């Protein structure tokens, strides 16, 4: 079974530029998560989708971050405009929606450096 795919793996941009990340979850997984992991910290949930609907985006900086999950499969996360403090690893995870304590499976992440 293929795992969670993410691209690109690395991205370097200048502040105020825009950037987009792509995630393809494990086949059949209804729930998709985007996390931000700053160096030396644990992952912080940005947004959680159930199929193509948002169930939690309470920690998403909505003035600059946006995400969508069209057709309930692939998802994109966008930052516009980027700030220096957005430098982090962006992790995508997915889980099968059986209800209760679903295990999340993570992709390799996208390392973003904002200069």
């Amino acid at each position, binding site marked *: 079974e293929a795992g969670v795919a993410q691209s690109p793996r690395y991205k370097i941009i200048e502040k105020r530029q825009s950037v987009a990340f792509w995630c393809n979850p494990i086949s059949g997984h209804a729930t998709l998560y985007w996390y931000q992991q700053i160096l030396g910290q*644990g992952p912080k949930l940005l947004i959680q989708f*159930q199929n193509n609907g948002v*169930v939690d985006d309470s920690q998403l900086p909505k003035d600059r971050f946006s995400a969508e999950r069209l057709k309930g499969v692939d998802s994109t996360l966008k930052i516009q405009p980027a700030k220096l403090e957005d430098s982090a690893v962006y992790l995508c995870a997915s889980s099968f929606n059986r209800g209760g*304590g679903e*295990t999340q499976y*993570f*992709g*390799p992440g996208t390392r973003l450096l904002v200069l």
Partner: protein
Amino acid sequence: AQKVTQAQTEISVVEKEDVTLDCVYETRDTTYYLFWYKQPPSGELVFLIRRNSFDEQNEISGRYSWNFQKSTSSFNFTITASQVVDSAVYFCALSEALDNFNKFYFGSGTKLNVKP
């Protein structure tokens, strides 16, 4: 307040030593789930174990074992006879059920250095 606390920021051991990583959680739910993930230098978070709040039996998987104690809200992870390949950052996580979805909280992680 932190939902998941991993007080040990970094631990260094010599190969073959046993090491325990601590995890303390906070929840008012009666039904919840606890997880451990490993993050090697490559960066990908690897799932290790999931336990539900109704199952307090300790679990052993090879050199790995987990001790779940509801009385102290702890879910500790022990590696027996550590190896260099165990060097990684280990995260403890808590999942609570909210309305129609599960909310996850990760601890800040414990970096384990196993020296040859």
